[in-house]
């Protein structure tokens, strides 16, 4: 049994072991796309690691059926402490150490490598946002000892009261832990990031591709925080037909002190500047059109451009998914062979109707 998988080994069929986000990145990488490199600690490692004594103690803690919030909170704290206190077994520590060393070599960064350690949920529905959102991401880690520590923290986060309550609601035992993998990914020093739509997401017009982007990490664009820069490219000629510099007031940047990506004011010098040059826009569109041809349906493609590198080595693809706003437009291409995997944790949109029925009116089964 391989206890740690390099990204290059991961395929979409590994979704149950590593979670959908890591599996899709692995799939992209195996198809030759540049992605942030990394490795994954699959779900079976958690059970394989916990000692019999700890598993027995967890079984004892969660032996009862249902707990009031205060008890759940207490049990949750105890379970998390158990996991954080237990030493990692030598074989797992060694496997992570080796994988990390391989990653340092593959990226050529050596000890300068910084990574993100994130939990990757393998939920019932392939990464349900309400579950995955409860887990953790730790950014900017470089020492392997820190990586090991944060892998344990990711696992412990599977025992927060919210995660326990979610398991109870979907009828899973709190002991069931085959739902949490950990991904370790190179933290790219991102200059600009954003999305390419392989059709106009507003009109559904497939004769053009649309690029939206901002300085810094892509969160500010994906979350709708800023009015991003906007380009429209004619599919047939590859010509840029519209350029609009957005009123970008903020960007998402890595804040080393906080250890995470935060939204902060954009330096004045950057606000009025387009965050991509024309070559980059055209290159991103070419590549996105290739992904669309491969997938058979219009896509939205998330990408990032690394600082201090030049095309094409500067471009990383983070994920792609079918663009579902205009389903009728899919008819032009070949239908995809298999239903694409659902997007990773981020993409569950807010539907006021569903929310009202489920969370406000509490309609059973809504």
């Amino acid at each position, binding site marked *: 049994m391989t206890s740690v998988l390099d990204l290059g080994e991961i395929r979409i069929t590994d979704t149950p072991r590593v979670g959908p986000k890591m599996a899709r990145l692995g799939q992209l990488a195996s198809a030759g796309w540049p992605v942030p490199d990394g490795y994954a600690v699959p779900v079976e490692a958690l059970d394989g690691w916990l000692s019999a004594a700890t598993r027995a103690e967890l079984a004892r803690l969660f032996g009862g059926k249902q707990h009031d919030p205060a008890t759940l909170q207490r049990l949750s704290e105890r379970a998390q402490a158990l996991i954080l206190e237990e030493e990692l077994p030598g074989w797992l520590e060694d496997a992570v150490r080796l994988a990390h060393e391989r990653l340092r070599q593959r990226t050529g960064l050596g000890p300068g490598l910084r990574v993100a350690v994130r939990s990757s949920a393998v939920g019932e529905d392939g990464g349900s946002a309400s579950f995955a*959102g409860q887990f953790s991401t730790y950014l900017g880690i470089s020492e392997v000892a820190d990586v090991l520590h944060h892998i344990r923290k990711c696992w412990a986060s599977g025992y927060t009261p919210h995660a326990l309550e979610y398991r109870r609601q979907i009828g899973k035992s709190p002991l069931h832990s085959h739902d949490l993998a950990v991904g370790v990914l190179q933290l790219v020093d991102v200059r600009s990031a954003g999305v390419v739509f392989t059709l106009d997401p507003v009109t559904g017009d497939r004769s053009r591709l649309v690029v939206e982007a901002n300085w810094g990490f892509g969160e500010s664009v994906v979350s709708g925080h800023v009015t991003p820069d906007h380009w429209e490219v004619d599919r047939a000629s590859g010509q840029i037909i519209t350029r609009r510099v957005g009123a970008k007031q903020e960007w998402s940047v890595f804040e080393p002190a906080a250890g995470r990506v935060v939204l902060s004011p954009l330096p004045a010098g950057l606000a009025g500047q387009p965050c991509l040059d024309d070559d980059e826009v055209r290159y991103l569109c070419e590549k996105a059109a290739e992904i669309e041809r491969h997938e058979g349906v219009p896509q939205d493609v998330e990408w990032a451009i690394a600082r201090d590198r030049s095309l094409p080595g500067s471009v990383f693809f983070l994920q792609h998914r079918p663009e579902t706003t205009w389903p009728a437009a899919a008819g032009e291409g070949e239908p995809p062979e298999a239903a694409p995997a659902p997007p990773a944790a981020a*993409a569950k949109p*807010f539907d006021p109707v569903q*929310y*009202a029925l489920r969370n406000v009116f509490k*309609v059973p089964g809504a």
Partner: protein
Amino acid sequence: MAAQDKPRIFPVDDFVREELYPGYKPAFGSQPFVAGPVRPFGKADNARYWLRDSLHFSEGMVPASIATLDDAQTWGAQLGAEIVGVPPTRGSVNRLAGTHVYIGTIDVDTDWQIQSRAARFGAYVGPVLQNFDSYWAMRAGELQSAYDYLDNLDLASMDPGQLWAALKDAYAFHRRAWFIHFEVMYVLTANYLAFYALAEEIGLEGSMVSAFLSGQQTFYSKTDEELWRLAGRARELDVTGPLLHAAPADMKAQIEALPHGRTWWNDFAGFLSAYGQRTEETCRVDTPSWIEDPSPALYSIGTFLSKPTGFDFHAARQQAIAERDEQIEAARRAINGSDLQRFNEALASNLAANFAWWNEEHNYLIDRRAAIPVRRASLELGRRLAADGTIDQPDDLFFLFKPELFAVMEGGDERWPELAAKIPDRRAFFEHWKHRGPELPTMLGTIPDTVPDPIMIEVFGLSGHFLQTLKDGAEGATELRGFPAAKGVVEGTARVITTVADISQVQPGDILVCGGTTTEWTPVFGIIKACVCDTGGSLTHAAIVSREYGIPCVVGTAKATQAIKTGDRVRVDGRAGTVQVFPASP
């Protein structure tokens, strides 16, 4: 302290009657009802809960207003809830204690009905929320064009047949306006509550959501701005004396006697023609519009003039908007990833279909206006009937029920003497109950632990805490808890006001303690230090206006008007939702 030892039933027995008013038993009107017309309490009503709706109707209903009430909270609410398919409720029903309005809900409690309503709800609400602008524009346009027609009818020169047709049109319009009201309200409330639930789920305070949605321009905020402008103009033209000191009836004459008085009054008259089609209470055909009686507008101008320091309306508004934006950004900084994405989507959905905004805006088009055409046509008919001696005075007509009036007008002439004879007793009945309003219990019947209708919780404030507080009683309470509606901590002297008619007793710097406020109370928010209400949730008027005026506010305390006396020292903490009471020495 054990709650189950306390009485859970506040008996309706004192208010059980067969007749609504002397000589009139409730009857089905012409319209179909889901659950029966407005009527007095009956013994069986002890089995369910009833909330006194002093929020909308503080002074009691005359007979003619019973028809407009059942267009609204009975028929309109029930039809709206059916069309939208609100899962837990089939709308509301009304009972009267004397002339005072109580509201109850029709809970849906079978699985099949809840599921089938949920399916309807999704099919109806989804498309509406995606196109709310055009959906509301169409309805607002329908209402406005009806007013353009009805308000401009030359009633005095109509022949009797035309006048009667105009009154029937006015009644038909009134009913239609209330159907629009509830259709839109249920859709928007669901959108708002969905955002509220999301906020709680991702670790934000749900109570902040209405603050995120505040600060949009409404017809009422424009009215306030105009009144503020007129106050400034009064200073320039040196006509402030009468505005501050004259009795309402003498004000116009005293102002016009001043050198620039006519100039100012002409400006004010222009304001009235644009903003004056509003009454002081909902559904009440017996209350005049500002055009008929401008004293509420003149009082508002007076409160702006009496502000101790240079209160700047625009600066206060800008500050409120800046604070709102900062609160939104603070919320965004606290979340990330998919939570942030969903937050932004929910915020966008709620800004596009904004209940906090509509909750103010619609009053001008519906609540405070829809009955004015009925009032105008009724008074014209009343003038003619008084002139030929059928009744004593024009507003006698307000003491006939709509079915009585329709029967007598459509071929029952010989019944006029019998009906006219009932009017004096009915006037006496109305006056008697008018004075008993403040003593009526907040709730009657069986007080539940929780109510299933989230709309009753957010609009009327029927939280579990509120219900428990009612059960426990108010005596000797030194700390009240309620819904934290607007932040800030102040200490000051309480002024307990139970009806909007007494609003002029409020002095600058008072802490207002009341049952609940409506749009008509807005002017005092410019002079008070804080506001405390018995009823209300995150969406009630007092909560919204307090945030815009930047004063602390606690609503839904259940018993503030009983536990606090005018003159008591109180400390209001609008973030914690607490009110400490330090009784004045006896």
